[in-house]
């Protein structure tokens, strides 16, 4: 194929546009992080921190609670993934929906739900909340891989005398292992850097590196200790991703996708399939149901008093009206969605279209826009608070910074939704439009945007949901006039009093409804 024509103007525009998402991540993530490390990181402090028994206890707890969370998640997620990938039965779609929905729900809502049932803070509550979130991660990553595994392999193994367990160990497991490893690494990272869950259900005695970064920097003013912890945390996360990287051997096997088979055709053991799905559904859905129930129960009796107080607009425990909190959250989520999706669209169009000349540029763009995935919320918040604290860049007290940082967190997710959709547009459609007289602008508007509409709606919904539920960075940046729903819920659940607690559950229920609303088209 001869060299495709691209005018100088188009080339310049392309380069300038690529700079936007890269510049955005550089200004709000790379620069703050590097600046904080350069200013506060020192070898002597690191040595002190790493030899401090209380910090070592926190590191140890962060690690083992994350490992246990991964194991607990796998115990529920792997059987459910097997059952939903392999079998078709009435209610299967509903069960899949129930298991995947919590992933977009705010961590604080899930934590509040678990607290509503367990009524106590501690490790069990932490593990439960982490399971609720992360079953969706395993299901989304492992299920497509399982669906690619031809059931005839299992049938052949059975006819050769393999028991169901041997079939799993020798046939299924080798084929899904790389997907399970990837999912486990991601779940570990989420749990290791979990902030909302630990803050709500961890209690006073359970601290992780992520919550300690917040405590050391915001409450105690020990920024040098906080940054050492942030670096330590990042090293662990990068190490885990490095170890879990699939080997070329694991990724090159070829399979034919197979549709789930009707459950009633399974000769025996149908109850195992149903239990594999029903138990995880109960574990995942129960905290959400409990949140709704707690919002209408006062000292064991049915009461809508908290609802009327919240909807009436004033809660004595909050310094601003509840309506203002709701409106602030919605405005932030709207601004986040607009900014994140606009930048993600630029990045996805650069990376998704196969421009041969720009391969190196695309690699840089992909790497930089993925960075928000490996930097934890507390590290991000800490970097921003420290870097943008003095004139002329004293942005930390500006309200606009919150949706901007939310957009930064949503950016890699939005890109991952849009990029495959951009790649799916045949380049010949753009050529066809140009031949019919469409200018590059018209082609973009009438072909690209028209075809990307479902993916755009999805990324808008998910970005808005991320903003609605964001708690970690918001804890660093929020002021009383910019209190979000997650901050308000945290404040209410952290105070004594049955009515105060109930009001917290009312706001959590509202947050569930809002999140479901913004992601309904996603």
């Amino acid at each position, binding site marked *: 194929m001869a060299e495709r024509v691209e005018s100088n103007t188009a080339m310049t525009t392309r380069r300038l546009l690529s700079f936007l998402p890269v510049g955005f991540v550089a200004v709000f993530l790379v620069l703050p992080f590097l600046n904080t490390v350069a200013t506060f990181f020192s070898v002597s402090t690191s040595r002190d921190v790493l030899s401090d028994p209380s910090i070592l206890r926190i590191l140890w707890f962060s690690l083992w609670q994350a490992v246990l969370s991964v194991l607990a998640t796998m115990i529920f997620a792997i059987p459910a993934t097997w059952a939903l990938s392999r079998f078709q039965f009435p209610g299967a779609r509903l069960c899949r929906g129930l298991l995947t929905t919590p992933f977009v729900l705010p961590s604080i809502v899930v934590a509040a739900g678990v607290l509503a049932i367990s009524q106590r803070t501690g490790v069990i509550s932490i593990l439960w909340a982490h399971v609720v979130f992360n079953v969706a991660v395993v299901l989304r990553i492992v299920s497509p891989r399982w669906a690619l595994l031809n059931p005839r392999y299992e049938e052949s193994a059975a006819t050769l005398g393999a028991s169901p367990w041997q079939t799993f160990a020798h046939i299924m497991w080798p084929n899904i292992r790389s997907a399970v490893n990837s999912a486990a690494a991601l779940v570990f990272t989420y749990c290791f850097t979990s902030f909302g869950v630990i803050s709500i259900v961890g209690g006073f005695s359970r601290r992780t590196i992520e919550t300690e970064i917040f405590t050391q920097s915001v409450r105690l003013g020990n920024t040098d200790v906080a940054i050492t912890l942030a670096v330590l945390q990042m090293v662990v996360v990068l190490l885990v991703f490095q170890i879990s990287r699939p080997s070329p051997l694991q990724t090159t096997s070829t399979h034919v996708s197979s549709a789930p088979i009707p459950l009633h055709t399974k000769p025996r053991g149908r109850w195992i399939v149903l239990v594999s799905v029903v138990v995880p559904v109960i574990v995942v859905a129960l905290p959400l149901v409990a949140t709704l129930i707690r919002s209408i129960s006062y000292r064991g009796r049915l009461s809508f008093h908290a609802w009327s107080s919240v909807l009436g607009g004033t809660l004595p425990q909050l310094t601003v009206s509840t309506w203002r909190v709701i409106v602030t959250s919605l405005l932030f989520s709207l601004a986040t969605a607009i900014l994140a999706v606009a930048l993600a669209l630029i990045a996805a169009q650069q990376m998704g279209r196969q421009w041969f000349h720009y391969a190196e540029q695309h690699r840089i763009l992909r790497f930089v826009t993925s960075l928000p995935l490996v930097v934890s919320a507390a590290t991000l918040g800490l970097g921003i608070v420290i870097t943008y604290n003095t004139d002329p860049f004293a942005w930390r007290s500006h309200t606009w910074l919150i949706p901007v940082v939310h957009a930064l967190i949503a950016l890699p997710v939005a890109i991952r939704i849009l990029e495959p959709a951009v790649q799916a547009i045949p380049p010949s459609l753009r050529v066809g*439009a140009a031949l019919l*007289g*469409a200018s590059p602008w018209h082609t973009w508007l009438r072909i690209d945007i028209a075809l990307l509409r479902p993916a755009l709606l999805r990324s808008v919904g998910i970005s808005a949901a991320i903003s609605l539920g964001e708690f970690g960075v918001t804890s660093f940046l929020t002021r009383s006039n910019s209190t979000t729903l997650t901050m308000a819920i945290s404040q209410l659940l952290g105070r004594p009093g049955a009515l105060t607690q109930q009001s917290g559950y009312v706001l959590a229920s509202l947050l569930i409804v809002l999140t479901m609303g913004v992601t309904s088209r996603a």
Partner: protein
Amino acid sequence: MLKVSKLSVSYAGAPIISDLSFEVPTATTLAITGPSGVGKSTVLQAICGLVRIAEGAIFIDDRDITQLPTHKRGIGMVTQSNDLFPHLTVSQNIAFGLRLRGTSPRETSDRVEEMLELVGLSDFAHRDIHSLSGGESRRIAIARALAPSPSILLLDEPFTGLDDETRDALMHQVKSILQSSSVTSVLVTHDHSEADFLSSSSLALVS
């Protein structure tokens, strides 16, 4: 009239087309034939402005279009992959080029009807393009290319991928369309029978 003068196209320094010149008089059809990989389709892409040309010039009715972007050249093209827009209906696909030119809705509607009649698919206006057969898709692609009245129509292997019966029927229909619309056209094909049947002159490319 289409005139291609001393056209050279290269890829990564290797020449694909070298010093190619030809003319296609108004309302006639030139067939470009030759073995696979000789650069037949590249010639059409160069005429449309889809590939960068190393040397040479392209004229339509003595107007030099070499430096014009694709969308300003006023050329229609039909390829074997059709490339109908999947989010638009049959009539919306045909109207696409007309709307961009600011044609009134009434005129657009009349022209779409006329084009559908021309390709023998009058009842297909509101059909989803996914419901079309291969032959129907190809005819809609021809209608869409002709709707804005292009000065040049390029046909890149337009009968490839069709069964024999559909191919024969479509060849007859295309011949009648080319004659009735008086459009200047260039047909790229590897099949000499197609070239002989549709063209008034031919050009054989050799490697």
